[in-house]
């Protein structure tokens, strides 16, 4: 009994100490819309042309949700909806890599018509990913007729690094960049039951980048 109580205390202490995330956000923007974006819309897209990683769709969704939930006046077009409606011009092979390429893209009459219908004022490209770093520890689990359980301890680190590039669709120009990096250590002690103490690294990076984008796009922040 004494051992279990001690293990619980250790777990609680780890919960208080661990699962922490450190994050850093850098921002550089020009031509911020002073009155907000009005009834225009913004689209947030993930870069997917690197060979060894993809910007996670759930991260792109998280940023969009953060912005539209805090300022409902901002119309954020869903990534998949935009990619499907503009197919095949924003696939990894065909997506414009810099703001000047928008000019060439809108020479296609069908693309120009669609962009006008969507009222896209800003296009935000997010490039980056969250990667699992070093892990340590070991855990053993066993199951028998009388029940089962695990014993051991595991720990791992996660690192998130994302950059958002803001394009002004009307002026065909890049108007800002926001960088965020976050890292955190997660723990999983196990005394009969594993207790995961997860560091919300990707969520912190999402909040950091989305807050800066919200300040850029919204007239109320």
């Amino acid at each position, binding site marked *: 009994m004494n051992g279990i109580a001690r293990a619980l205390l250790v777990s609680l202490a780890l919960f208080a100490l661990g699962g922490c995330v450190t994050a850093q956000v850098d921002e550089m923007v020009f031509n911020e819309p002073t009155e907000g974006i009005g009834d225009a819309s913004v689209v947030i897209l993930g870069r997917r042309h690197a060979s060894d990683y993809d910007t*996670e769709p*759930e991260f792109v969704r998280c940023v969009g949700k953060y912005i539209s939930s805090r300022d409902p006046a901002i119309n954020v077009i869903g990534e998949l909806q935009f990619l499907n409606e503009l197919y*095949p*011009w924003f696939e990894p*092979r*065909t997506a414009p890599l810099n703001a000047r390429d928008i000019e060439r893209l809108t020479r*296609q*009459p069908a693309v120009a018509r*669609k962009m006008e219908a969507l009222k896209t004022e800003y296009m935000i490209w997010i490039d980056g990913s969250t990667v699992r770093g070093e892990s340590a520890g070991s855990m053993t689990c066993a199951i028998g007729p009388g029940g089962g359980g695990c014993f051991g301890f595991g720990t791992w680190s996660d690192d998130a690094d994302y950059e958002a590039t803001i394009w002004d669709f009307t002026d065909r120009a890049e108007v800002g960049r926001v960088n965020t990096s976050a890292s955190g250590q997660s723990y999983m002690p196990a005394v009969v039951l594993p207790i995961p103490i997860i560091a919300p690294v990707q969520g912190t990076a999402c909040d950091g980048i989305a807050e800066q984008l919200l300040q850029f796009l919204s007239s109320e922040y």
Partner: protein
Amino acid sequence: MTTASRVAALFLLALLAACGPAHVVVQGDFPEPLLDPLPLTLGVWYDEEFAGHEFFDEAAARNESSWIVSTGESQVQMWDTLLGGMFRELVHMKGEPGPGQMNQVVDGVLIPQVDELQYAIPAHTSVKVYEIWMRYRFRLVTTGGKPIAEWTMTSYGKTPTAFLQSDEEAVNLAAVMALRDAGAHFVTSFARVPAVSDWLRARGVPAPGSAL
């Protein structure tokens, strides 16, 4: 059969199923292309091998699994949607174009083939992405089967590892990305094939996808 026997039989079946190859029947939604269609009537002929395309990879080691990736149904779905949006009219040919074959009147017939398909899963590589790579061979012929153009084209799709996502789900997603990429590559490269360009020019048609 008693309950215990049923449970034992189910358990045995589950064990046997675990020994079989991983089978992915590729399924996805493919959007219509955003294009002003070319003022041409295109015929298309999918042969049996293409419409039922299946890729089989036998496990190289005991701890690996064999894979069957069936793309045929999705190939037809994607190419029908793409070509239907890219040309004024798309017609499915009654038979393979050739001398003596009675077929509908069209400007040309496209015959796609999958030459090669390769896949990679994180268990094969140190990279945490699932990948599908395909090489297509296209033939553009007259209704009588006379060659107009022949060319190859590659496509690539990948998807990162994700929490609670099985290998099968990830391979399916990578295959859907590869099919979407095939459509994007086709739209932007079709008019750049010299023989196709000549064929289009002869019909007084402007090149599609010339903006990229």
